[in-house]
């Protein structure tokens, strides 16, 4: 085990996979000489050269489609989206081409490609720059969607994503790049589609992913003091969802809180609600509680931004609600 920052873990994953496989290259804005807007590609240009660490113009639709085309004929591109807010410009190439190539060609082609970059609020960036958009991609068959919370998961899942034969949406936490965590030495690959029970508990299940995980831990610790034992299930992969892990935990605690950074309407959390009520209806002792970003545009002002996002107190309140202990 070594302690690494989230961004360092990602950097290691890229470095290892690019060393292992010459077909893997990174393309995006500022990935090369600038070493990445968030320094994830630090040093890679010097190691791999300008054909494998490609500084692209600000042409999201163009360079994303270019990468998809190269994947059709055997390369394995990693496309860095400076943030997912900007990737909306490239969404057509992701959902209409990458996600459908295998199908349109009747199995003749595959599109092994990773689209990665930060999602969620970066901190005081206002409405256009603060969006958690995973639900928009999780909606599409033909894609896989991953959103790691810890450095270890970031490394293990990125390596798996690069080796996957399908297009993978890899959403990093814009505010997680500097967090530290233990990362296993050597070959460390985490299969996509597997959730991780990050904290065992028996009274209530908290289901979450990405940055929200840390608020959940904070909440769980506080609840513990009050004698409430919360289990935390980190989904890690949002498509396909690990229904088994979700249901197993629900059957254990019978009470559920789902925590996501994004907006409620047709969010990933809503899908998790549906999975639970349809597969464990009789195991629910209370309505499932959702904690999510407020259903409004994100403001720049410090107090408004804070109030818009989930935090530990909101999660604690939701858990108590799920436990019918509002005034607990």
């Amino acid at each position: 085990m070594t302690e690494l920052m989230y961004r360092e873990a990602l950097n290691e994953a890229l470095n290892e996979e690019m060393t292992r496989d010459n077909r893997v290259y990174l393309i995006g804005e500022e990935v090369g000489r600038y070493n990445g807007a968030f320094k994830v590609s630090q040093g890679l240009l010097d190691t791999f050269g300008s054909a494998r660490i490609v500084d692209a113009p600000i042409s999201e639709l163009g360079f994303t489609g270019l990468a998809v085309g190269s994947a059709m004929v055997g390369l394995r591109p990693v496309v860095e989206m400076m943030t997912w807010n900007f990737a909306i410009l490239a969404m057509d190439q992701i959902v209409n081409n990458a996600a459908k190539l295998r199908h349109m060609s009747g199995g003749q082609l595959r599109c092994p490609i990773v689209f990665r970059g930060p999602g969620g609020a970066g901190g005081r960036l206002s409405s256009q720059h603060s969006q958690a958009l995973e639900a928009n991609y999780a909606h599409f068959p033909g894609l896989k969607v991953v959103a790691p919370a810890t450095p270890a998961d970031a490394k293990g899942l990125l390596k798996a994503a690069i080796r996957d034969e399908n297009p993978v949406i890899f959403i990093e936490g814009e505010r997680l790049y500097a967090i530290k965590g233990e990362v296993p030495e050597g070959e460390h690959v985490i299969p996509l589609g597997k959730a991780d029970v990050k904290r065992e508990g028996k009274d209530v299940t908290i289901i979450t992913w990405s940055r929200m995980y840390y608020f959940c831990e904070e909440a769980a610790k506080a609840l513990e003091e009050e004698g409430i034992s919360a289990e935390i299930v980190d989904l890690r992969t949002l498509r396909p969802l690990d229904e088994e892990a979700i249901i197993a935990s629900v059957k254990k605690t019978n009470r559920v809180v789902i925590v996501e950074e994004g907006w409620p309407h047709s969010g990933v959390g809503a899908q998790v609600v549906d999975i639970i009520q349809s597969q464990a209806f009789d195991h629910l002792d209370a309505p499932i509680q959702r904690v999510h970003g407020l259903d409004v545009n994100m403001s720049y002002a410090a107090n408004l931004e804070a109030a818009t996002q989930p935090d530990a107190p909101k999660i604690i309140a939701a858990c108590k609600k799920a436990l019918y202990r509002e005034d607990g």
Partner: protein
Amino acid sequence: MTSGGGRVDRCRRQPTVSSALTKDQLLTMYRKMYLIRRFEERAGQQYGLGKIAGFCHLYIGQEAVAVGPVEAIREDDYMLSAYRDHGQPLARGSHAGMLMAELFGRDGGYSKGKGGSMHIFDIEKHFYGGYGIVGGQIPLGAGMAFASRYRNEDRVTVCYFGDAASNQGSFHETLNMASKWKLPVIYICENNRYGMGTAFNRVTAVHEVWKRAEAYGIRGEAVDGMDVLAMYDAVKRAAEECRAGKGPVLLEANTYRFRGHSMADPANYRTKQEVEEERKNDPIPRLQAHIQKNFKGVSDEVFETLRKEVNEEVDEAVKFADASPEPSLEELWRDTIVEEGEEDVKPRERVLGAKVDWPQLPGPKDFEVTWDLEPRDPPAEASKS
């Protein structure tokens, strides 16, 4: 080859290499163009019979734009197009029956009937589709060329798109990158003057697509798209430039579709006179005239025989498609995601049990990346103009 009039004035004349083509080569071109013509006529007819549904965009009138380039490049060069995509694969030698079966939505189609008319893929013949979002294939073509360059292959990619597609942002973004990185890609704009019911010139400030090349520092050229030899010459030159690392190139093929945009379109937006005028440019009789002028003793019978053969081939194709079953319902759950260890599907092997030599893609260490896409220069230099 004598111009059939039309907009040849818009073409910059160039020295021809097509003059070296043998009679047999020219007859092959004729056969391919007529195959496309006949195939499309029958497809239209089958659509009328309800055996083909959805959108079906015919290539009739544009045959030369597919055949000239196919003859001018190597078999292993990449090619892709939009949804008006029956002509190129036929020119590259795809199985007409399996193509028709795809149009019918049958298991015997190239995509098991999953793609239909708009999404023809024949990877064995290096035809990479078949795209329904206007302009969506333009960046893909650059990416395929990027891959060739990345692996030091001397392959070129020929990417087709329509006149109207040139107003998509993807065109702008891609041509800048393709030029900056000198990608070996030949963009052929099939200017048939209309995007659906809208004349290109009605919604476009500058009417000559080839002129846009200058904004990206690449070579642009207008070509008579009704002249298969002009197309052949232009693409031969462009391919040489690309293989020599001087690409990309933007070619504007001035052509015309004799039918409506799709089978659903009555094409009331153009006049009978206009269509008749353009039909005089029909690339197929033009090539016949050229052959007969340049090779004495190629009688009309030769062409009749050829056409008869092709007619039979296309009849067979329809029979083949008719005989092909619907895909099994298990197919619902295949091909959306590549499962662990799953192989790629080889259509002719799957459908005909044929032995195919499938394009082998280099593995993780089968090649070294020696390309320096952007040679280092002192930062100061970078900002000089």
